[in-house]
């Protein structure tokens, strides 16, 4: 599970995340919504241990990421926003490298790589160089590395960005499937995605939670549409 307590992150004088607290239990899929610059990616970067919090705490399955980063990182699979990859490697080479870092070797490593290649539908590009991949394949390759070690916690920053409708559908299905056993937090701009895959959603703006609940309760709050609620809550802040 993920436990975020009073998380604040400042960059100089700018507060990107402001006293954020929430928790995600096992078997939950939390959708993280918010306009650009709301603090979604920053929160995810703190949760995954890429950047330290200015104040507050993050625990992954009870392990504080600030104090025991390596142990906590073993529990997390992370898909960063821009799906960064080593351009000069092949898909298989990249996944094998990530699997080695995740502690796999020999047959176990090959099995882990084969499993994620199948899960993320990468069979046709296995031996292709990453710099020749389309955006959709790049995203799925990066998603594949996050699943290699079958992590308890998945943090996915815009996992469906750049995918075509078929691929989006498959990834949403995958998230739903994985969400039954794992703890998942994912960010998105696409509001129907929340209804399609999340058990709970949170709208944040200017680093603060402005709405939280099940997709249904958010829909009710927004008089029948999450989009309405999103626009109401986030545009009002822009106007202010």
């Amino acid at each position, binding site marked *: 599970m993920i436990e975020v307590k009073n998380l604040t992150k400042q960059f100089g004088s700018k507060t990107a995340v402001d006293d954020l607290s929430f928790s995600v239990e096992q078997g939950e899929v939390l959708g993280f919504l918010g306009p650009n610059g709301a603090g979604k990616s920053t929160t995810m970067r703190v949760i995954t241990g890429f950047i330290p919090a200015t104040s507050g705490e993050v625990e992954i399955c009870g392990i504080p990421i600030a104090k025991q980063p390596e142990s906590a990182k*073993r529990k997390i699979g992370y898909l*960063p926003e821009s799906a*960064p*990859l*080593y351009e000069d*490697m092949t898909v298989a080479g990249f996944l094998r490298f990530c699997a080695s870092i995740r*502690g796999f070797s020999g047959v176990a490593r090959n099995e882990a790589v084969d499993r994620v290649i199948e899960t993320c539908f990468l069979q046709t590009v296995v031996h292709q160089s990453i710099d020749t991949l389309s955006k959709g394949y790049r995203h799925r390759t990066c998603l594949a590395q996050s699943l290699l070690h079958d992590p308890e916690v998945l943090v996915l920053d815009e996992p469906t960005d750049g995918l075509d409708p078929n691929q989006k559908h498959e990834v949403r299905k995958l998230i739903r499937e994985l969400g039954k056993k794992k703890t998942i937090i994912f960010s998105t701009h696409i509001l129907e995605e929340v209804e399609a895959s999340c058990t709970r959603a949170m709208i944040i703006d200017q680093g603060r939670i402005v709405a939280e609940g099940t997709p249904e309760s958010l829909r009710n709050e927004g008089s029948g549409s999450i989009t309405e609620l999103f626009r109401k809550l986030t545009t009002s802040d822009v106007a202010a």
Partner: protein
Amino acid sequence: MSVIGIFAILLLTAALIGGPLLIANIRAIFCREVNSFFTSPLAYVLMFIFLVAVNALTFLWPGRELVESEQAALKDFFFFYHPWILAFYAPLLAMRTLADEHRQGTIELISTMPVRTIELVCGKFLGSFIVLFASLLFTASVWITVSILGDPDHGPIIAGYLGSLFVGGAFIAVAIAVSAVTRSQVICVAVSIPICLLLCIVGFDPVQNFFADSGVGFLSFTGELLASISVMPAFVDFSKGLIEIRYLFYFVSVIALCLFITNTVLQSKRS
């Protein structure tokens, strides 16, 4: 200077033993570096230019042609040029290491995996170092040539090679430290080559003679100070066949200092 050296080695050791060090992680990063180097055509171009430069300077430099000198010792010919060539070659080898991680954004990926920053830094350093080692191995053609043409003393040649490895290692460490700060390979090269050249020039004989001959106490002291930070006095001893503990210590401390700086920069960059 030795105080700084001891301090640098202690700091790097503290960073290394600050947590469980996974050799498997260093090995994985090292292998990726080496693979990535040899899949790039640039690598072969760089190696080719390096070998051409070494051989051309050794055999063709006017007034210093190895064959015409009828000497089998390599100190004044082949090894004489090594620090200068390495001042260009080592930064070119190491420029991609961390600058590329920042440019591609993969630093975010690798930093969120269970890898300690120091493991990343060591893997990167060793990756570039082994390529340097392979490059120097290819220059053994010169050694073979003088062995066929004459009867060289192999001891100083082996020591000279050890010196070249240390100088190259120190320059790679300098370039890695610079590449931690920037995402541009061009900036990395443009900054680290002058630093490496400076580490050569300040201990180069003509420069040292200038300070020694000046007769001014302050300048003589400056000369000694510069010599103590330069790779030259150490390298010259190596190429003569002298392996002194203090010079081994010098190279280890330069490498330790640069790797420690890299580790610190990478950690502080994220906050």
